[in-house]
């Protein structure tokens, strides 16, 4: 799901553990970083194409569930203006074994970074700058495509 309200990762994790007490659960939380390559970031504006993001995140969770035999999953992504250190994204995956839970969480984050319609704009030193896609993010996304081709 997407939301313009503050995410509480602790509460989301506790709710997930209670609802899905399977053998292995992995959670990931991404926060607004306080620095970029050159400057101190003051805040982050996250634009979202809400209708498409909801669809993409649901399909991504379903793809991860199918690929890694998940028992359950949850993806929550924030949008709007976020101060430094606010949580941006919460991912939880639950499986019978840790390998699947870890891999599914990594898969979801790697695909989400480049395929879910969010755009980051950082503010620093009275400037606002749209964040561009990092080569490392593209590479991590591509790894899953290459694994698909290899299998």
């Amino acid at each position: 799901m997407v939301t313009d309200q503050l995410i509480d990762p602790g509460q989301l994790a506790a709710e997930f553990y209670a609802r899905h007490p399977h053998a292995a659960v992995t959670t990931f939380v991404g926060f607004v970083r306080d620095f970029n390559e050159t400057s101190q970031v003051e805040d982050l504006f996250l634009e979202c194409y809400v209708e498409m993001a909801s669809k993409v995140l649901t399909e991504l969770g379903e793809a991860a569930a199918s690929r890694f035999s998940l028992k359950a999953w949850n993806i929550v992504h924030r949008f709007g203006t976020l101060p430094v250190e606010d949580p941006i994204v919460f991912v939880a995956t639950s499986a019978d074994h840790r390998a699947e839970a870890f891999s599914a969480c990594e898969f979801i984050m790697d695909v989400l970074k480049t395929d879910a319609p969010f755009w980051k704009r950082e503010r620093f030193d009275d400037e606002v700058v749209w964040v561009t896609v990092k080569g490392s993010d593209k590479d991590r996304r591509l790894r899953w495509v290459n694994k698909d081709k290899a299998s």
Partner: protein
Amino acid sequence: MEKQVSGEVTITVKFFSLIREAVATEQLVLEWSESLSTVEQVKAVLSERGEAWSTALSHPNLIQAVNQRVVFPEENIADGDELAFFPPMTGG
């Protein structure tokens, strides 16, 4: 263009991020016609609105989505469809 008795005869076009800023428009509605039946044709028509539009819509990494799915420029558009233009995504 002759109006249909029932059903939509428009397409909605949305813009996000730096594309939205460049054209100073979040959303607009176009009357659908056979001459606007692909994404590429819609881009061409919108690019005639001025330099800001033609520059933004010729962004080298421009992504287009039809009904919330990323598509190639050759994708067909039908009446009632929602088209969106945006740069590469940077979520997470």
